[in-house]
């Protein structure tokens, strides 16, 4: 038993030593590269940014694209889409049109005021309003699912207008 323990200990030490060594070597080779290191890309704060400043990650994750926004907000007790949300929804509609293999689930949410099951109905109406907008832009209805969470999943757990305005929302989940 004692021998076993010793052997395990030895193996563990070897692994630690080896892994420590390999990390050291990796960072060494990075430093001796062609100069395209993260520090040389100026004020870009993500490692995904490349030399030319062109986004190379997934278009849905590009902070400069309207596709980056996946939450839109609603006024109290209504499901009308605000003017300010239209560019966002239009961008997502275009994305879905050119990526017919992609699909989204639109979540409808409400603030906590009023009764819970009525809010489930209101949340569905918000999700449906987004879905109808997308369909009017030409997106196939088979690419869009809807679900209402009513007031059950607040984004902000607070109890005032600041929190409520963040909770009356539609969320696009790819």
């Amino acid at each position, binding site marked *: 038993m004692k021998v076993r323990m010793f052997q395990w200990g030895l193996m563990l030490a070897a692994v630690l030593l080896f892994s420590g060594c390999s990390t050291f070597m990796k960072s060494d080779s990075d430093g001796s590269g062609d100069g395209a290191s993260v520090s040389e890309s100026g004020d870009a704060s993500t490692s995904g940014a490349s030399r030319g400043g062109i986004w190379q990650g997934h278009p849905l994750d590009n902070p400069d694209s309207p596709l980056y926004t996946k939450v839109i907000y609603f006024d109290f007790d209504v499901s009308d889409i605000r003017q300010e949300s239209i560019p966002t929804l239009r961008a997502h509609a275009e994305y879905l049109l050119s990526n017919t293999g992609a699909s989204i689930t639109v979540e409808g949410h409400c603030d906590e005021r009023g*009764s819970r099951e009525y809010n489930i109905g209101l949340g*569905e109406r918000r999700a449906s309003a987004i879905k109808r907008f997308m369909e009017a832009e030409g997106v196939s209805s088979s690419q869009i699912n809807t679900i209402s969470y009513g007031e059950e999943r607040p984004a902000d757990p*607070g109890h005032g207008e600041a929190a409520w305005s963040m909770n009356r929302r539609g969320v696009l989940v790819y």
Partner: protein
Amino acid sequence: MKYLKPFNFFTFLLLLIALPALSLAKPGLVIEITEGAEGALPIAVVPFKWTGSVAQRPEHNVGSIISNDLKRSGLFNPLEESKMLTRPSTGDEVDFRDWRTVAVENIVVGQVQPNGSGGYLVRFQLFDVYKGEQITGFSVPTTASNLRSTAHQIADIVYETLTGQAGAFNTRIAYVTSVNRGDKKNIALQIADADGFGPETIVESSEPIMSPAWSPDGKKLAYVSFENSKPSIFVQEVYTGRRVKVSSFKGINGAPAWSPDGRYLAMTLSKGGNPDIYVMNVNTRKLRQLTSHWGIDTEPAWSPDGKFIVFTSDRPGKPQIYRVAVTGGAAERLTFEGSYNARASYSPDGKNLVMVTRVNGHYRIATLDLENMRLNVLTNGSLDESPSFAPNGSMVIYATTTGGRAELSAVSFDGRVRQRLALQSGDVREPVWSPYTK
């Protein structure tokens, strides 16, 4: 026999100290009466005497449970135990002059005796202090696990004898709790005795659980669960844990409500494009669409005679309460006062509705008298919701938000007595009072 008395009193004191500690250890509901009623009946419920050995003494004192029940009803003002001059446990030991001195009108005394293996015999007597007469008295055989239930039954008998109205102490409540576990929520459907004791989780999930509804026999709960990221209606047997998924259509599956005979579930489905009320035969699963309107129709509730269903609809632009015959036909609008009325349900006698109403931006609990159509606001919170009548119609339990936390409150039908039921931690909501169980 006499030498036992001081010893009994000492262990009783120990129990007094130990009981709150015990209840703290359980994640139960804590009940606190926040507004009492003036003119409550003065009564004394003497702690019941245990006649067996100290080692076998039951965990709970029957007299204390009865006393707490009566106090919570708001109709009684039980004498504090520290003010009792003597502690009689049989009628022979009662000296009525002692009790007239402390101005109580009635006194309850009793004993718990060992009765076979693990069994008890509970004897109690209720007296009129001024007449010096026994009003009623029973001997009830019970078991250790049913002792609290027996105490609630005795409280029901005392309540009914002195008020003329059936008691509802031997009932249960179901409710939904939400507790943060790291960055996830743990949501649970729990049931507990109506005094908050003995909470048990019957289903839990990281996804929302909503809208519990007791079957009329009190043996099943229908509820909505979002497990697998879609809402479905389940019916679960409370005591076996067995459950079946009865509705999982596209869109909303919500707001289940049992018919009084337990054969049908009214529910909200949006499979037709928007939320409407449907009635499902629970055995055959056959569906019938009851309402058909572009508005949100939801939150159905049956009249006690099974002939009508009330529901929330925003067909006039804002949510209001409507009533439709179960056989179908035109829906009749019932509420006209205020711009927001929702989630109505009938009182057990069918004469009133209880609902959520908006008053100056505050969401409160109100009753609607179906005879004169008068709305009576019972509560004074800002985010009050989910009202549910006690099966005797004396109290309404509802959810409220106090100091940023969601908790439960109960208010008497006349709005005079209020109590709060809070969890040790986390939120508690959507309370539903069980029907009478035998």
